[in-house]
């Protein structure tokens, strides 16, 4: 039986009637046409589907619709303020932290969540936190530099 959930996505209210088990990832991509959030594995192993749910890092591919009810979701499309990029987006651009860019939205949102939970992370905390996200281009060194830059910027 379908259920109706109401939640906000990037600050806008949304109501969706759907199967309670349907992944939040599909709702974002197919119903709301917010395709910045990607599919990589559907099993929680790669992090390309990362969004923020009530400010917390969340893997949209393993989040069933029912769990998103009454929540506030932020996707990559909701990070910039108009033309002004979020500092983490700026850090990724400045460090050239993308090759194909498919993992980039997930990496950026994972970094945003890191800064919320550990505003001054150690190197080990950065590695532990980011390790759930796969970059198949193996651009890890540039991405790490972007995370470090974002940490430095946030400290200012």
């Amino acid at each position, binding site marked *: 039986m379908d259920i109706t959930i109401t939640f906000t996505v990037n600050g806008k209210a949304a109501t969706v009637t759907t199967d309670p088990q349907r992944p939040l990832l599909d709702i974002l991509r197919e*119903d709301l046409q917010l395709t910045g959030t990607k599919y990589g594995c559907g099993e929680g192993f*790669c992090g390309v589907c990362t969004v923020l749910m009530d400010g917390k890092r969340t893997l949209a591919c393993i989040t069933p619709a029912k769990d998103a009810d009454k929540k506030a979701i932020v996707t*990559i499309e909701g990070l910039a303020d108009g033309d002004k990029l979020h500092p983490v987006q700026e850090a*990724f*651009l400045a460090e050239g932290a993308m090759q194909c860019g498919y993992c980039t939205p997930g990496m950026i949102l994972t970094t945003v969540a890191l800064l919320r939970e550990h505003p001054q992370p150690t190197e080990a905390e950065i590695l532990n936190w980011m390790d759930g996200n796969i970059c198949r*281009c193996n651009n890890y060194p540039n991405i790490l530099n972007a995370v470090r830059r974002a940490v430095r910027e946030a400290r200012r």
Partner: protein
Amino acid sequence: MTTTRTEKPERGTKNAERGKPNEKQANLSSVASVSCFAESVTQRPVPETGNEMDRRGFIQLLGAGILVTVFEGIADAQRSSRSGGGSGGGRGRNVSARIHIGEDGVITVMTGKIEMGQGARAELTQSAAEELHVPPDSIRMVMGDTHLCPDDGTTAGSRTTPSTVPAVRQAAAAARMLLIGLACKQWGVAENSVEVRDGVITHPPSNRTVTFAELAKSGAAAKALDQPAPPGVSVTPVKEWKVMGTSYARPNRRDLVTGAHKFPSDLILPNMLHGKVLRPPSYGAKLLSIDLEPAKAMKDVVVLREGDFVGVAAPTTFQATQALKAIAETAKWESAPHPSSTEVYDYLRQRVRSKRDLENPFANEMGKAAKVLKQTYRTAYIQHAPAETRTALAEWKDGHLTVWTCTQAPFGYHSELGRAFQLPSERVRVIVPDFGCGFGGKHTAESAIEAARLARAAGRPVSVKWTREEEFTWAYFRPAAVIEIEAGLDEKGQIAVWHFININSGAAAVQTPYRIAHNNCRYVPSDTPLRQGSYRTLAATANNFARECMMDELAAAAGADPLDFRLAHLDNDRIRAVLEEAARQFDWRGRRKQKRAPGTGIGLACGTEKASVVAACVEISVDEAKNEIVVKKVTEVFEAGTVVNPENLRKQVIGCILMGLGGALREEMIFEGGKMLNASFGKYLVPRFKDVPELDIHLRNWPGMEPVGGGETPIIAIAPAIANAVFDATGRRIRQMPIKLSAAKPGQTT
């Protein structure tokens, strides 16, 4: 294609001679002609005129302006022959529309190459900007659209840099000369009295200027219609490069951090359905029966069976998945025998096409050797695991098929689709938006054909996106290899005889770069039980692994240092230079003299493939209790001629090293009874942040040499360097990829 370089004309050279062909250049260079569109732009839909879109088509799409067509006969033939059967070329098309200069100042450059993270978009933009003398940001690069772009062959084999960069440079240089010609004719001045900068032609003596955009709409351009451009145009010499040779960043990078870029899997058309395809439960299983009714009974679901093909399409992926599950449960299959991943090496060995090819023609010489070593190396089947799984969106309209997809072979897909649906070439269009990774894994059109089948049945656009499990199971694999080497040393400790057989995985880098008097290297095909295909450097990884491990074993047998032993057999100056620099940067000799801490070791390897050269030194530690090898430091030196984009090349080198760590240490498909047992990122462990060792990367720029591709070869040195370091640490030789400590027992030294 050879890029021709001419210096500035000698003082006193007549104007008219500038840009004239010399005998040698003429047959290699591009001949351009120009036509002008004086009509105003209309916003009508693109006419379906086939992949050789006519001029009217271009103007409708790109706006009014000048379309520069380029004769690329020689370049084309060369590309086709070099990139082999998978080139997707061979259309015999030798006039290509390459460059459009719009009246609005926008310069459009067209290429059949695609962007998947390897950096072709930036590199080709730089190439065009360099020769047109315009800022790179003023260029719009249209890639991988079979309607608009010339067939530049499959984006594979590291061919973009040596083939397409010269083609684009030639076209851009020809276009610049055409524009200069137009301006000079208007002004009645000599061609060498003008300067071109940022898309503006200036005649300093008279202070006159004209922009490319103004020329594009001038009456003079109209008169120049179809007038041949000066052939044999010279391209900018390396020492005068302003844009090439710099770390120009990917032009559409901003869209990647905002989520605005539409990858093929992100595309949505009105009325679109999501498709799913029924897969066999195991390799080779045959469908006996299936009941489609459970899916047909579902609302809004389209079900299709055509022979063995069974698929569904529904308004959401979730519904499509449920519908597929419902019918899959009713399916009866007949399974087929299939070797397991542990049996597969014997399986391949037994099924070689020609047993005679395994024989050593130098058996006599081998008999005379002072010392003979004989070893077998194995490499596993692995997957590319691209970030974005195979995906395609197909739409049928009035008998025309358009497919948006991720592929390295847009023109190959175009032909495959034409064959699959019996369509003439002009009724198929393949469009490839920048997508998420290929690594040689996206050359075959299965997802495109699946989407097109379902779209035809549904009468609506259908998008098919493979799941990760499908990608791991049904995409083709990097072939497994069994490599047998027999080598004989003479009394002086030099290799006298070398017999090297690669079974099943391929001929890339099968030849040894070392000087050996009696040398027999051969690839022997076998009967693969899995679908196999290309992968970053194809078989070069396996061949270089086996060879460089054996070189270490021979060095040990000869009582020589691995570095000295290699140098003693190397005549190639580029390999020597790269190897010696890697050793120097790593302090190989210093470290060899020191005693290594228990459980740690160092190793090195070098190699050459696709005209580029690599050497790596690594430091590792082993944890016997955890059965684990940790790579602590990698020093790698890479040389690919003149560097077109240093930052992009550095990323490619690092990407190769880290991707190579996966295949070196962990990645292998495990299968039994035709089923993949680790078709998931949870079980098939690709490299992650924590696997990244200390990296010390050195790019050698070789300015005297044409640029060659760099996105593949840097992967071939890492695995053998690690295996050799494991020997240094433990005294054990591990002759397989992935390199697992458990493959040789402690104390086992042979």
